[in-house]
């Protein structure tokens, strides 16, 4: 099992308690192996792509702005 998957499951198993209420947490995740001389923005986009694919595949709503938008800022 990949470390990313283990961490994603750990997050899913740890709900947020907010004002006395439990809010279930789940995450889509993506991993990218950093390449020598790679541009940091490119690396961010490369980690975002599999995350986005997973999010779409799981049929969950893509909530709010994706990482790509924050990368362009």
């Amino acid at each position, binding site marked *: 099992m990949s470390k990313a998957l283990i961490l994603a499951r750990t997050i899913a198993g740890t709900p947020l308690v*907010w004002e006395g209420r439990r809010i279930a947490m789940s995450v889509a995740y993506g991993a990218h192996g*950093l390449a020598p*001389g790679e541009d940091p923005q490119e690396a*961010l986009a490369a980690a975002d792509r599999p995350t986005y694919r997973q999010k779409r595949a799981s049929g969950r709503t893509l*909530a709010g702005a994706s990482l790509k938008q924050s990368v362009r800022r």
Partner: protein
Amino acid sequence: MKIRDQELLARLRTLGSKVGGAARTAGAAANVDDAIGLLGLPEQELTPTVRSALHHLIEEVAELRQELLTTQGRLAELERLADEDSPAPISNRRAFLRSLARTIGYVERYGAACSLLYFDVNGLKSINDTHGHAAGDAALIHVATVLRAHIRASDVIGRLGGDGVLLTRPTRRMR
């Protein structure tokens, strides 16, 4: 008096005058002797005026060093605060991008294997809508905190301002 001596004295006086009426301590006097040894000044050049100027200069340097240490300490604290979104130890955009660039540098120079992991919180918009933006923010901090508890201290966690939390971590021991 030689021209070189006059120049030296003038410079020492300028620096020394800043110190004003600083007290002559036994420790400072010992430091004057140390300085003389370090500078390799010949005995015949050590007039009382030169010694006194040297004494002032040493005090001035000590004072400046103390000021520098204080300033450096304050700067380090401000740097630390600027790099974190309180209360969890999460790098902000600026700090995370800087750290990412550094990690890529390690990959390039030392052949280290490192991964960039991205965790995007599902349904953050609905959390924001149902519980308010403070809850959405708490959700992101919660995810980062859970991650922090399950990774190495050297792994870097950051937020860029979107719905996700990022993580850089070495995946293989460097050879």
